[in-house]
């Protein structure tokens, strides 16, 4: 269970540029939930994920994971339970290190010691995992990651973010920077990898694609100006279509005048 209570985050506090990026944000997500998060630019989606992961520190509020308060732990400690994939495929992997080295770094996230980072057993395990991606990477396990395509790197990052069996998976527009073909593949891979965990994982996926937001996962949260303004799941979510969602967004976000604009941005 991931519980977020009263989470508030300012940027450039007490300066003329002060921005309230998260405004008393609340969310409770149960094990097995796959939540898609939507909202216009600057709504605070990335800030939310960065606060959960510990890349940023909140000004107020708390984050609990399986009962444990994690909001004061440094990022590297939370990484034991949190897998992440970013929009930019270059962010999730180390370009001048080999495929197998990247995987090894991701698999063991605590108590690293003076054992070799890679051995035959691990190598076989990595080959097996890589072959499931169907990208032929299992035969290029010592290739430098910088030589792979964006789609291949993103697929590797997906694998790295799930292979160590995290409790939480954070995806921030992780298909947005890819060509349509790779984008589709990565989304499919995401669903497969989440399925593999059979309801044992909490997934938060930010997307700008409303259609995707309703098709993928089992719950959708809409954010606006740092608040959680709309949260649907189950039957209610089944019935809703993209157009309804955009309308909701305009009404709830007090943006009736901007309906057309929102439609263009969100779909």
């Amino acid at each position, binding site marked *: 269970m991931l519980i977020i209570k009263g989470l508030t985050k300012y940027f450039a506090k007490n300066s003329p540029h002060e921005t309230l990026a998260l405004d008393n944000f609340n969310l409770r997500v149960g094990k097995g939930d796959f939540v898609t998060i939507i909202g216009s630019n600057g709504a605070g989606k990335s800030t939310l994920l960065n606060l959960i992961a510990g*890349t940023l520190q909140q000004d107020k509020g708390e984050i609990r994971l399986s009962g444990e308060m994690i909001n004061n732990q440094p990022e590297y400690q939370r*990484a034991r339970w949190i897998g992440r994939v970013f929009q930019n495929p270059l962010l999730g992997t180390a*370009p001048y290190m080999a495929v197998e*080295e990247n995987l090894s*770094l991701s698999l063991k996230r605590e108590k*690293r*010691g*003076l054992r070799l980072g890679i051995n035959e057993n691990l190598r076989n395990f990595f080959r097996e995992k890589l072959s499931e991606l169907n990208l032929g990477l299992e035969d290029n396990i010592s290739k430098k990651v910088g030589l792979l395509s964006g789609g291949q790197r993103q697929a590797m990052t997906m694998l790295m973010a799930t292979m160590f069996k995290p409790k939480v998976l954070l995806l921030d527009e992780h298909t947005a920077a890819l060509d349509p073909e790779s984008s589709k593949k990565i989304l499919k891979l995401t669903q497969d990898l989440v399925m593999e965990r059979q309801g044992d994982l909490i997934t938060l996926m930010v997307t700008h694609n409303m259609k995707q937001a309703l098709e993928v996962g089992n719950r959708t949260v809409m954010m606006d100006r740092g608040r959680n303004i709309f949260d649907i799941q189950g039957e209610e979510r089944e019935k809703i279509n993209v157009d309804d969602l955009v309308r909701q967004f305009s009404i709830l976000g007090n943006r009736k005048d901007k309906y057309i604009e929102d439609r263009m941005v969100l779909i």
Partner: protein
Amino acid sequence: MPISLFLHALEQGLVFGIMVLGVFITYKILDFPDLTVEGSFPLGAAVVAKVIFSGGDPLLGTFLAIIAGSLAGLITGLLHTKLKLTNLLSGILTMTLLYSVNLRIMGRPNIPLLGKVTLLGEIENYFPNLSMDYLIPFFFLFLVVILKFIIDYFLSTEIGLTIIATGDNEQMIKSLGVNTDLTKLMGLCISNALVALSGALFAQYSGFADVNMGLGTIVAGLACVIIGISIIKIPTIFWRTIAVLVGSLVYRLIMIIALRYGYSFGFKPGDLKMISVLLVIIALSVPFIKGKLNFADRFNLGRKDLQNNNGKEV
């Protein structure tokens, strides 16, 4: 060219090669241009000279030099990670601090070691039948090879990989559960320990320690690293450590030749530093002149152009 010139280049290339391994770890592995070495090289020399001059055991002195070097790295690392100073400023502060520290340790600007029992002297006593001419290069070679393999092994361990990743994509490795403050501290300590060891051995080899002997260490180190990896381009750790050592040998050979024969072209000993800088610039510009940069060249040149992925995306 007389054979003794080659032997000298070999000896110096190996002794300084230990320093080059240290510079390689900060500059290439951690992506941290560390100026501390300008101070930690003479620090190693000062510590060992002080111990030997006061009648202490040279092995103990060498060991203390290694410890002192790693402390120097620790200071730079703390300035950088805790006070958030830039890597260049952190190095400059420590390097300048060490100048005073080194003077304090030695009590004067220069300590001669001629006639004292050094580590090399002790080794000579172990092998009375061998000529010093071959014993010294052989001992240095032995030491450098051992250090090379220890570094290779360390960099392939779980911790070692996190140090490499810190230089390659810091943001990623943080999100994979690594405290990058710690990996940077480790890298800096190891690097400066090697540099101080190099300084300690050089003092015993050349028979003196001087507070100014660190001048130009960083450029010499960079020159060796860059020359080495433009000669041997295989991007595995095993070959990269070999490459920088080869770079060290080539560099010393060039320096010795320049010193020996340069006068006929009007060179003076004071021009050596300029030659070092020219070497660095030439080695760095060759791939540009040859044409487009490929992946391997970018890798060799320092990684900035490929690494614009550190643009604030989070």
